[in-house]
């Protein structure tokens, strides 16, 4: 297996792990972390997927740097929103996730 393929598969695995946490974990902080894991997965595909054969291609590096900037800003906005939601409602989760958790607890 070539290095590039390994990186790409690892990236896809990270992306999938991120999706599952984003959907299944009710706490908003975990959801934001899940999006960060997903972003790391994509960056891994970008940087690792093409390296090896003819040296290093600068374009994916430039894309990942831009992507990291976007991801940091989005995380900051997300965290600010979580704080305000927690202060205002007393919960750091979305109502539909709380309802689902309550329904599951009842079923057990």
């Amino acid at each position, binding site marked *: 297996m070539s290095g590039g393929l390994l990186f790409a598969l690892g990236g896809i695995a990270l992306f999938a792990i991120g999706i599952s946490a984003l959907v299944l974990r009710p706490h*908003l902080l975990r959801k934001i972390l899940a999006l960060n894991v997903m972003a790391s997965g*994509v960056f891994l595909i970008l940087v690792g997927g093409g390296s090896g054969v003819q040296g290093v291609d600068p*374009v994916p590096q430039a894309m990942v740097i831009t992507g990291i900037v*976007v991801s940091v800003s*989005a995380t900051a*906005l*997300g965290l600010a929103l979580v704080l305000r939601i927690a202060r205002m409602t007393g919960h750091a989760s979305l109502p539909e996730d709380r309802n689902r958790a309550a329904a599951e607890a009842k079923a057990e």
Partner: protein
Amino acid sequence: MTALVTETPWIVWTIALPLAGALASFMLPRRSVAIGLAAAFATAAAAAGLVAQVVARGAVAHRIGGWDAPLGIALGADGLSALMLAMAAVVGLGVSIYARSYLAPTPEKARAFWPLLLLLWTALNGLFQSQDIFNLYVTLELLGLSAVALVALAGTGPALIGAMRYLLVSLFGSLSFLVGVALLYHTYGTLDLSLLAERSADGLPVAVPLSAMIAGMLLKTGLFPFHVWLPPAHGSARAPVSALLSALVVKASFYVLLRLWFTFQPEAPGVAVLLGVLGAIAIFWGSLQALRQRRLKLLVAYSTVAQLGYLFLAFPLAGGDPALNWGGSVYLALSHALAKGAMFLAAGGIMMEEGHDDIDGLDRVVDRMPLTLAAFALAGISLAGLPPSGGFVGKWMLLQSAMEQGLWYWALVIIVGGVLTAAYVFRVLGSAFTESAQEHEEHAVPRVMELTALTLALAAVALGFVAPWALPLLDGVLP
């Protein structure tokens, strides 16, 4: 004069002016209203310049700083970009004028509103003129972040939760798009849309990334069943923000979807039919939900879910004359932007006057706000697709495309959807014309707010008359 139109690099101005305005209004918060309005007019003027340039010269392009792709960023505008920029300019200017009066009682909100509005506009103009898929990703993210912040501006619990859900969905959608970008780059060694169109062939190397990108864009456009985030976000934001979101922001991801489809021209009839079926379900589900809503703004938001469904009917109709199905869909997107912008602005006026937006509690609003009700009714005419509005032209083209290909069931969807639209519009109008038992206080609404809503609604109707000049712009863009 003509040299001014044809030689000025309008592409740069359409992005630089709102960006400069956003920074200036952020740095000088006490002057934010004046700076914001000036920047809005300047941006709209630059967009008008660009449209005139595209009409005179055809597609135009610009390399930022003289750098070539792949490290430089190439921008370009063709007829489709020009129409989208014009849409953003008309709605953006209307919302700006409206917001000046609407936000006047809450200056601290106004200070945050103007930089965000102008950033959103920058992102839109950048997105509509992006020539490579990575730049599309960056502008999508800029658009999403400013839109989320605008929703949160309302500051209420539902708005914050709506904003949070919107942020999660929006980031998920863009990351899914970025996966596609990464895979395409590694396969074809380019990000440029026109080069990708040349190099790509049908098969798995295109199908996998394209599916990821399309799924991301469906999520962000809010096509059924990915629409659940849309009504709470659009319904809980302040009125000018709702207008921007429903009119422009969802169209941006639809535009990306169209560009991808035109670039790769996938031979995937199954996917096209699936998109059409989801669109048809969106029309029925969105309209029925709109009929059931008690709150006016949620009704208008569910109407967006329904009307977005129409845009996707173009995909299963792609077998015939491309000018009819794609042209019809693009024209529906334009007229929906104007009509829905007008409708949300009118709803904001009614909410301000009545102090609530409970539909059954509207007490003879027509006596006190005839202009706003006229705006709502005219916007409703365009949404329902009655002649001579822009919505009529778009739906007529889709109908014609369906009938020419003998696909009568799509025609049936279009017609029944129109009837349902008329039903929920008349539900609001009926309530506004009759007395209500509910007690309420009357608040004065600035006349300029009523007039901007009415102007946008009239523009949605007038769009039906400019079709002979607007539609030829799409020649050469459609596949």
